[in-house]
């Protein structure tokens, strides 16, 4: 009797303990949102949201001060867009090759090797952009390239998101039922036609989700961009110029000695909130697309 009750109590205690562990993730989310909201509230008391979101000049540390976030957003999307320009064609072609063409042994070797690219710390990519991509790749092609430029950052961010795209696309392509491929072959389609007209459309939502997840990662990427893209916020579409992204700005302020509590200091939270909102939106769309994709074939 007593032992039975003890046992029940122990089971309940363990259940509760495990539930607390799982709840840590909810607490984390709530804390992130609370911190970002409360700190940016202080900022928006002094700067109107209209000036912040629509202003075209970002100079929070220099007089005359100006808090238009558009140059930072522009820089972020210039790098992230460039990264996708590198990563999507290469990642998709690699995925098609690995899932449709490559022999099994090649797949077994190539996939883990590609995963290494995703495991290399991002500061290493910053080094690579600064001492290799800019002087040995971009400068010979376009001599007017600046030392810090958006293009080199975009290229290395593209390289580091390539494995994400490749591996998610590979999963999506392989989830397309074999019977669809065989039906197309029976109608005398070639391998190219099966790949591009049967398998790729069948896996489209998986591919779209992969691209969106990579986009979110590229937007939030920090160290490589802070090292390679420069520290000059600029509203430009020229990838050979020095720009500044939202993440690089946050790093710049954190590395400097701006005293806590000042308006300059609060800018990192308002920029951080903007960054968080953008990546969250992209991630939510990606997960929605991914779920729809799963429903089709399972």
């Amino acid at each position, binding site marked *: 009797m007593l032992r039975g009750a003890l046992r029940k109590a122990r089971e309940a205690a363990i259940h509760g303990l495990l539930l607390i562990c799982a709840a840590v993730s909810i607490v984390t989310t709530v804390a992130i949102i609370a911190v970002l909201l409360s700190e940016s509230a202080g900022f928006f008391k002094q700067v109107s949201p209209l000036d912040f979101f629509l202003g075209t000049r970002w100079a929070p540390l220099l007089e005359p001060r100006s808090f238009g976030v558009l140059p930072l957003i522009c820089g972020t999307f210039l790098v992230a867009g460039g990264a996708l320009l590198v990563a999507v064609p290469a990642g998709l072609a690699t995925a098609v090759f690995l899932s449709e063409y490559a022999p099994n042994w090649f797949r077994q070797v190539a996939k883990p090797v590609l995963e290494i690219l995703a495991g290399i710390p991002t500061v290493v990519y910053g080094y690579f952009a600064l001492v290799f991509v800019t002087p040995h790749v971009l400068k010979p092609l376009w001599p007017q390239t600046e030392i810090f430029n958006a293009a080199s950052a975009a290229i290395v961010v593209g390289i580091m998101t390539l494995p994400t795209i490749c591996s998610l696309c590979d999963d999506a392509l392989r989830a397309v039922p074999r019977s669809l491929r065989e039906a197309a072959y029976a109608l005398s389609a070639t391998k190219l036609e099966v790949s591009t007209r049967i398998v790729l459309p069948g896996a489209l939502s998986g591919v779209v989700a992969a691209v969106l997840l990579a986009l979110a990662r590229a937007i939030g990427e920090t*160290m490589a961009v802070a090292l390679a893209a420069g520290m000059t916020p600029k509203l430009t579409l020229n990838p050979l110029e020095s720009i500044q992204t939202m993440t690089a700005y946050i*790093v710049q302020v954190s590395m400097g000695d701006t005293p806590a509590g000042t308006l300059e200091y609060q800018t990192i939270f308002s920029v951080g909130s903007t960054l968080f909102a953008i990546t969250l939106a992209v991630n939510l769309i990606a997960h929605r697309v991914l779920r729809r994709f799963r429903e089709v074939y399972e």
Partner: protein
Amino acid sequence: MSAAPLHSRTPPPDVFRPRLALRRRLGAAFAAFCLLLTLGALGVLFVLLAQVLLAGWPWVSRKFIANMPSVLTPEQAGMKSAIYGTLWLAVLTGLFSVPVGLGAAIYLEEYAGRSRLARFIQFNIANLAGVPSIVYGMLGLAVFVRWLRCDRSVLSGALTMSLLVLPVIIIASREALAAVPSSIRQAAFALGATRWQTVRHHVLPAALPGMMTGIILALSRGIGETAPLILIGALSYVPFVPGGPLSDYPLTSTGLRQWLSTALFDQFTVMPIQIYDWVARPQPEFHHLAAAGIIVLLGVLLGMNATAVAIRAWQQRRRT
């Protein structure tokens, strides 16, 4: 009048023309194009590693690992404080995040079923995994550094890093738990085991190698992470190791406790931040130092990944 011979008639435009030779050639070109891009992606990795090794290998030496960083004489600079900082951070992060991560994974996989709460937590974790690491740095800055007054210490860094790697650990551990066949659970239940007894004695041992792999990979991600630590104020120039040398303290339990509490609240730096600082300096000597630092960092990560791969291989052998 007989009709024109069949073969001389040109087909109307809407009739299917096989054009097999052209299509085959196009197919071959496409295959070559895909192969080229695949090899290109692999080639980039090779170029990156070659660049780092060429620039940094002559600078890697015993001195480089044993010396403190130096701003004035790059020839004498080392990364001892950064190596110790990374070590402290990795161990503490593991201590904080592994129990919580495993607990959460066990709850979600073994206890919660498909309840509304479980699905919400799951959705929440998937989104947390996509939050940029720099945002975790802001969280750590506001909560651990300022609110809990841990200051810019090793402890703040480790707590922040724990939150960052937690979603990765939970997702990987859940996969390992889900891979355990449900017949094992049913057999335990049939013999009257409680849920915890089933998990503790049957499910966990079977899932452990998979979990270890996930944990090692998550921690190696944490070791390479820089941005959140810059936000919570890890410095780029730290000429001491956390807590100082252990031999400075009396060899008693009080001495050990003193050493620990000093170390936990000391300022610190880690390998990626040291590398960042060196890369950001314009002089080429520092770029060589950075490359040498990258070699050491990649060496550590390679060791951890090799361990993870070895555990996975061992587990697969055991199963068959």
